[in-house]
């Protein structure tokens, strides 16, 4: 008498292996998608470059530019001073400007009222910096506040505060 072997177990095992294969492939796909789907966030370094550029433009070799303060007096019509700093905030990739920068010069004797307040860029992003101070949100613009000390041609002392803001969230954060 010929005995026919029961092959039901083998079939179940094949289905099981196939399911494990799919789960493993799905897991590997998820890992690659998560890692490579997240863009590199370069906004922090952009704010640092912007701050450096502005700091060099405002003060060079320890002295404030004479286009800003001359003979100890703030020059008239320097609202557009940052246009001299070779900054181009307009990019064809974006409808709105994605950058904002603000420079405040304070005399050492009075750190509450700035003697000069210069702005450039899209000021819609400034409000988001206040939110970022409490808790950092990736989707909001990256802000960097830095200060340094400088003197004018009459050796008056100043604290210069620079705020640099870069938005470009869509290209730097997975939304």
């Amino acid at each position, binding site marked *: 008498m010929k005995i026919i072997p029961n092959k039901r177990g083998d079939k179940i095992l094949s289905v099981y292996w196939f399911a494990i294969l799919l789960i493993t492939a799905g897991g590997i796909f998820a890992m690659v998608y998560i890692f490579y789907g*997240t863009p*590199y966030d*370069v906004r922090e370094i952009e704010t*640092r470059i912007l*701050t450096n550029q502005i*700091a060099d433009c405002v003060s060079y*070799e*320890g002295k404030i530019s004479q286009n800003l303060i001359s003979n100890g007096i703030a020059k008239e019509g320097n609202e557009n001073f940052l246009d001299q700093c070779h900054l181009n905030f307009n990019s064809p990739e974006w409808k709105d400007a994605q950058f904002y920068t603000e420079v405040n010069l304070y005399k050492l004797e009075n750190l509450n009222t700035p003697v000069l307040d210069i702005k450039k860029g899209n000021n819609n992003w400034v409000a988001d910096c206040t939110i970022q101070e409490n808790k950092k949100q990736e989707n909001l613009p990256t802000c*960097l506040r830095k200060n340094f000390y*400088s003197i004018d041609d009459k050796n008056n002392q100043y604290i210069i505060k620079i705020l640099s803001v870069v938005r470009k969230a869509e290209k730097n954060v997975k939304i």
Partner: protein
Amino acid sequence: MLKSKKAQTGETVSWIVATLVIIGILLIFIYVSVLMSNTKKINFTDTATGLPSESAILTEKNFIANEIMNNKNKDMIDGILKNENP
């Protein structure tokens, strides 16, 4: 005829445990890839000082201005800047 099914049960339990281990390892790897994706932030530091690039430049500017002024109130200025640049 009575058949002992202990061996069969043991094998089934082994397969279930093996499946759970595979899924567990996959979940751990996925979690690690999430953590790694959060580190995709590019930032440069000054090689000489180890400080962020802008800090090194601003520190240099402060130093030069202080040198020009031969500053007596350097500590006060450093205090102000330290408070403002945490």
